[in-house]
């Protein structure tokens, strides 16, 4: 497992010990009571738009109810194929408004998106034998996030990739690539008739005692025993798992059974999220 990432989010929750203890107790109940009365697997409502940047090959914008806003832009360039270069075909950059480039949060987010998306995406980018596309994913977190932005980002990237189109190739396979100049003829990167081949997403999960909560708020994260970022694909397979710093209220440590339950629940919740994204993508 990856070492826990220190973020400056969880460190500065302005709650007093009494409030923290109250919150933790209410989350330890069964059934648990979340401060905003959500069920453990309900996500907060989000708004999304696709194709907002005309000069990119694909783009999306996601707005979280607590004000967090994320814009993702995808551009693609042609490059000569390098031997064993399949992993290097995707480049991700994350810019968090107001923070430096080497801020640990930005670095963590970049790496997590790369791990989640890159391997499968690389295979779709061939043009003939000697050329391939290189995809640049640029993510802008417009407002400094209040809660951890990794789910937000991952959903944004997923949507942007789904509406990305690549120019239509009109030259023959062994020649240097030549493309049609009509943008309307461009083909989508993820064709809509194969819903199971979509990019993976990352879900933020917190556990308090035996209870597992999806889409935790900052306060919930600060009282949790364990906070994980789990990347799942459409089939429910877990691609990556990262630990975030958990709260300091409990005794520390988490039961192995709880972790197992987190992972298995991720598959179901993941599937629901995918269906939701599908609906957004279809609506345009």
């Amino acid at each position, binding site marked *: 497992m990856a070492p826990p990432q220190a973020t400056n989010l969880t460190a500065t929750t302005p709650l007093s010990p009494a409030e923290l203890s109250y919150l933790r107790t209410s989350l330890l109940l069964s059934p648990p009571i979340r401060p905003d009365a959500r069920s453990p697997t309900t996500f907060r409502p989000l708004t999304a738009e696709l194709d907002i940047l005309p000069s990119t090959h694909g783009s999306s914008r996601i707005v979280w109810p607590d004000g967090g806003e994320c814009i993702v832009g995808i551009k693609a360039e042609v490059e000569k194929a390098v031997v064993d270069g399949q992993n290097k075909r995707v480049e991700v950059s994350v810019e968090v408004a107001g923070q430096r480039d080497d801020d640990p949060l930005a670095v963590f987010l970049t790496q997590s998106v790369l791990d989640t998306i890159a391997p499968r995406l690389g295979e779709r980018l061939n043009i003939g034998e000697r050329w391939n596309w290189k995809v640049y994913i640029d993510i802008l977190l417009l407002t400094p996030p209040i809660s951890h932005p990794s789910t937000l980002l991952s959903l944004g990237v997923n949507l942007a990739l789904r509406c990305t189109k690549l120019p239509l190739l009109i030259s023959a396979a062994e020649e*240097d690539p030549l493309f049609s*100049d009509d*943008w309307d*003829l461009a083909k989508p990167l993820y064709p809509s008739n194969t819903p199971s081949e979509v990019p993976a997403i990352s879900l933020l999960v917190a556990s308090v005692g035996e209870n597992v909560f999806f889409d935790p708020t900052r306060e919930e994260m600060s009282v949790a025993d364990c906070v994980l970022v789990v990347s799942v694909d459409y089939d429910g397979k877990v691609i990556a798992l990262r630990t975030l710093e958990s709260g300091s209220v409990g005794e520390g440590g988490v039961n192995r059974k709880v972790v197992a339950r987190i992972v298995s629940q991720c598959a179901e919740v993941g599937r629901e999220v995918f269906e939701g994204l599908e609906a957004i993508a279809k609506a345009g």
Partner: protein
Amino acid sequence: MTSLKRSLADSKSDSGFASKVFLRSTKGKCVKVVRELYLREDIPCSSHLCIPCTATAPAGADVRPFVLSATPAGTAAYKNGHYLIPDTNIFLYCMDIIEHKSAFYDVVVLQTVLEELRNRSLPLYNRLRGLTSSEDKRFYVFHNEFRKETYVTRLPEETINDRNDRAVRKACAWYKSHLEEAVAGSKTRLPEIVMLTDDKDNLAKARAEGIACCNIKEYVKGLENADELLDMISAALENQEAKAAGGEMLYPEYYSMSKMNTGVKAGTMHQGIFNVSTYNFLEGSISVPSFNRPLIILGRENINRAVTGDLVVVELLPKDQWKQPSSKIVEEESLTKNDNPETDQPEQIETEQERKALVDEAKKLQGSNAEGKPQPTAKVVGVVKRNWRYYVGHVDPSSVSKSKSRGQQTVFLLPMDKRIPKIRIRTRQASELMGKRIVVAIDSWDRTSRYPVGHFVRSLGELETKEAETEALLLEYDVQYRPFPKAVLDCLPSEGHDWKVPDMSDPRWKGRVDYRDKLICSIDPPGCQDIDDALHAAPLPNGNYEVGVHIADVTHFVKPDTPMDDEAASRGTTVYLVDKRIDMLPMLLGTDLCSLKPYVERFAFSTIWEITPDADIVSVKFSKSAIASREAFSYEQAQIRIDDASAQDDLTKGMRTLLMLSKKLKQKRMDAGALNLASPEVRIEAESETSDPIDVKTKQMLETNSLVEEFMLLANISVAGKIYEAFPQTAMLRRHGAPPATNFEELQKQLKTRKGLSLRVDSSKALADSLDECVDAKDPFFNTLVRILATRCMLSAEYFCSGTQAYPEFRHYGLASEIYTHFTSPIRRYADVVAHRQLAAAIEYEQLHPSLHSKSKLEAVCKNINVRHRNAQFAGRASVEYYVGQALKGRLAQEDGFVMKIFSNGFVVFVPRFGIEGVIKVKELSEVGSAHEPKTEFDDEKYTLKVDTGKREVLLELFEKITVEITDSKDEATGKRKINMKLLM
């Protein structure tokens, strides 16, 4: 949450915005481009009829007055007058007609059409721009892409061409409705808006939409001099489908652009400029970077429609198909005499005759000649860029059908340049065009047609008249000979011929030195009016000499960034023909204000050296100055003056000093390895009245020639050093690359085999020394011949910008100098003007103009002047050849000649007296009548040709001196005058 998304296709049509998205792919990269447009409603239609537009037109300094006339001309079809709106294809193929003075006025050029034209052909775009800025043609550029009412969005799945056609139709419809509104209520007659296009689809749609339209042929038929104009329509517009159905024998198809690019990058194909051999029109060669010898391309099919000068891509043939370069002389005229110009029947691409011509039938003795081994041969698989220009030639009379004299027929045009193939043109004026020199342009060369197709542009006049021939020559070598336009003449000083060197108090004296007291004189060819240079020498108290070279101060009058400077930069050099001189600068400057005439004061740029009596340079100083030349001598006059013992004045003493020093300088140069190469210079003596040539003499070299030459070289070398020191990245210099040893292989072998002489080429000194040793005791001219042949193995010298080469490459091989430039003739060479400006900045006389700091601008200038210099040389030589031909008219001369080149079916003779080369074919040696084909034995190892003339056997050897009888004759069939040489045995 407010949406950030702006819908691209704006639903509200009057929002004033439009945007389009497309992909641009270049060289394998693909970029998505989004363009947003702000659409306006106030772009005027520019017709004098339209008052609303006058009211709403944007006010401002750069808004032009309205162009389109209120009463435009009418034609038979459009009696009320008409405005024309042509399509892109019309401009592409019919630019010559559109520029014609008799028709095509009041034309609306749409922005869509203009931009498409620019992408397809930049030269045609420039010509159209010229037309739009000329006031009398009344062409108006209407920006239909910016005007709201005429903006057209691309429909899904619509091609760009269809969209553009739709834009043209919409603009026509708008013009019609707009003008109708404008003249509504008044009695003025409304001109018809006519769309001109040749696209059948477009015409059909336009008619359906109610737009008046017509194709170019019908339109031109309705004009006054329809015949002449119809001829000028490009043949490329004609329907190609009919022709394609015919012939089975086709040229191979070209590869696609992407396939050629991939091939060249991978190294399986090669790209280069295609050149046709001067002796064999079926053989071409191409220099490519991967091979050190040029690749050969043999035969029409392999040449595959490439024309000399085109940038082509070739593919190597397999090794078993490699051939030797042809050792026969093959001329297109004789071989294809019987070809039919009409194209109704399918043609064979390669005839039996041609195939035979390529196979060498002469007996050859065995040998391991490197020339004898097959060399890499290739075939042309595609053309990257055509370099077609206007070609001058005359109509082949044998291709003109007498019966169809009034109707349209296809005839052949024989270009002046032997390397260009015959061109098919369709004309109605065939009978009028016979016997005239005409200018044509090539339009296209299909797979199905043996010859390229072109169209008539204009006629220059009768063959053999001086005007027509001179103009033909100048056109062939792309020399700009029109008179200077008004803008250039406006740059001349207002005092004109009364200009004088001003008083010392005048600000123009700033930085200048007064050398008017020095005893300066100039030495030039007789009758020279543009005197660039003057010299002086005077003894110094310390025993050394002060020597000065003064050059005309042209840059005082020609400032950068003026029309006169632009025109001079474009001309590049003065062109000297036998009887005419095409000046680079207006005569006022060249022959008066800049010229260092005697007895008047002039501005100059001076180089002063302190030189020891042994011709070593102690110091050099450059300065702008004013001088007063005391005398202007011709070479002969100067020589006489120096040799005259009674002349003891200071000026003559100075000249003697100069002569003494020049001899020492020359010796030093020879010791360093400078080459003394002879070029066959002839002088034509012409009758003064008519300038008809009387006699041809070879030029004599006097000591005074050498005097001037040495000091000019010295000045050039000194200036080169100075400007390089001041501007190491951007100095204008001249280099002469060392020729590769392979260039000399042929000549070395010939000399070794024939005369047992060896030619060493490892350095210029070695070459110079071994050239001195190449003498034949029996014949003094042999040495000159060898020098002439050696010159042809050299590379050309070229101008270059110092930042583009490393220092060792600055070397001038021929002059054996490390660094060199041209400085001494600014009146007739643009390179010298640039060098002057740079030197003036180097001595801090004035600031360097920003355009001379830019390496890329200077590189462009260098490229142009290199081309112009070469063309000027060719034009000058061609002029001499023509005059020699004229001088021989009706006369018979018997002269000595030397065999310069030997083939299996003929040989080339060089006649030193006239400085001309001629070909004698084996067939002509027959002494028993023209039916007898002499048997030949060609030994390409020993360079001999044995010919059985029917009466005896003649042995011809390379470098042998022979006697030839030279006559001129007019070929009855073609009307061309040729020089004939006959071997006297």
